[in-house]
């Protein structure tokens, strides 16, 4: 028995990500962002990453600042109630990386196709949109009605990075309940990916996981590595451990994008 099989530290996790990989960053806007795993990628000097995230924020800012980004594929990049993401916007305007904007459905539909193991997902969503045209999706005729649909191909990230509440050494991952809005996208992105690394506020025993099984949202066989990272999503939230650090994000915005402490390990 090897109970610690999946438990590694952040630098070991970062070693398994390669230059040029397609990396999905979990969390949405200011919630559950895998900040400490992002910092580990930056410390490891990863470059040319194809960044994918449903709704990106500070993790994109750090990666852009570090020059680690080849493209950003997202339905949103911003700081929520704190406004635009200054480094992302400046990087797009300067042509520093490819701005692969997605619509919500087209990004999540592609992840769904990957997680379902199907060749494409037909949808009406995004019909006529120039944002969809960026991706050059094919269309498909419904063999029953003859109607034409957008055919979303699967998107399988090389790796998905998440931050969650707690996990066991065996890789069972639990989240707070009731869950935050948009929590299920993290699970989807994990199940779509080739490999999954989850940072958690707490590593707990298998018995502790089994004591509240209704909180389990990813199973050990779906997770490749777990990393104990208390406050690893700081300054974004991690329920039930802590809320968004408004002061830290406010300082970042008012300084016009000075990374300051955001680039460093989280405060305890």
């Amino acid at each position, binding site marked *: 028995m090897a109970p610690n099989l999946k438990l590694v530290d952040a630098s070991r996790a970062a070693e398994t990500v390669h230059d040029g990989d397609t990396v999905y960053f979990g969390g949405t806007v200011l919630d559950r962002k895998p900040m400490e795993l992002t910092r580990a990628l930056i410390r490891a000097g990863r470059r040319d990453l194809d960044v994918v995230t449903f709704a990106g924020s500070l993790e994109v800012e750090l990666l852009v600042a570090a020059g680690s980004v080849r493209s950003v594929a997202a339905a949103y990049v911003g700081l929520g109630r704190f406004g635009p993401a200054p480094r992302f916007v400046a990087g797009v305007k300067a042509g520093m990386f490819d701005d692969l904007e997605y619509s919500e459905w087209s990004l999540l539909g592609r992840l769904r196709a990957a997680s379902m193991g199907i060749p494409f997902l037909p949808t009406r969503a*995004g019909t006529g949109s120039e944002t969809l045209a960026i991706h050059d999706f094919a269309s498909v005729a419904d063999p029953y009605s003859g*109607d034409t649909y957008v055919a979303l191909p699967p998107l399988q990230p090389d790796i998905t990075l998440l931050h969650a509440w707690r996990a066991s050494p065996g890789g069972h991952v639990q989240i707070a309940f009731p*869950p935050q809005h948009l929590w299920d996208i993290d699970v989807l992105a994990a199940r779509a990916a080739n490999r999954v690394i989850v940072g958690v506020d707490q590593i707990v025993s298998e018995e502790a996981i089994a004591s509240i099984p209704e909180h389990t949202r990813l199973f050990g066989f779906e997770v490749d590595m777990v990393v104990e990272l208390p406050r690893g999503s700081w300054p974004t939230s991690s329920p039930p451990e802590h809320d968004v650090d408004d002061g830290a994000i406010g300082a970042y915005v008012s300084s016009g994008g000075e990374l300051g402490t955001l680039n460093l390990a989280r405060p305890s």
Partner: protein
Amino acid sequence: MTASRGEIADLMVVALARMVAAGDVVGVGLGTPIALVAALVARHTTQHGVHVLAGGALDVSGGVEAHLRDPRDQRSLTPGFVPHLDSMDMAERQAMTLQFLRPAQIDRFGNLNTSRIGVRSAPAARFSGGLATADVPALLPRVIAYHPDHRPRSLPAQVDWITGSGRGWAGNTWKAAGTVAVVTDLAVIEFVESRGRVKSIHPWSNASTVGESTGFELSLPEDAPPTPEPTSDELETLDLVDPLRRRDEEVPDRAGRDGRTTS
């Protein structure tokens, strides 16, 4: 005649809320307080079972502030939480029927831009992104836009970038009307056959201001009626659902322009 920021927000909200029909299930996106307040006002003032799905929870009681709470603090305020992928499916199968969208630009086709100004490789402006703006006009039976800063740049002849097509979707299996109307700080405009038609003009504005502030040709009847002001019932409901006036945050503070003096 001038209007305060609060008067503009109030009239925009009630104009949107009045377009909600019996049985509508209204989806509300992130960071759009006017959309949220309008949906909540419609739910409170309509007797016909309007439902509001916002922030992953259905029919949260307690107004805007309750919607901003952590889900753990919404116990006893909502019948339940809706996973996001479930809400996507509700839209695709039209169990969700309406959404209010707030674009940076909207044109005479009802096309919506929430993405960028200029070319993609080197834009002059890049907004935070459209989330479902591209998607819902082709999914839901209808979408209604709003824009609190009516000027030619916001309502141009053609949007810089079509994030969401106003055209909707028509086939043998489904029909989606696309963008049916836009409520601005000056007027209510309906989109009929790729043309904007002024339905009503807000009390502080007039036909020539609306025309000069719009980048495309409008069908603008000389006798376009004034947008009815909020009733006392509607004002009471506004106070109930948004006592801290979060709805005002979306209206630009822009003193002394076009008779829309704000304070």
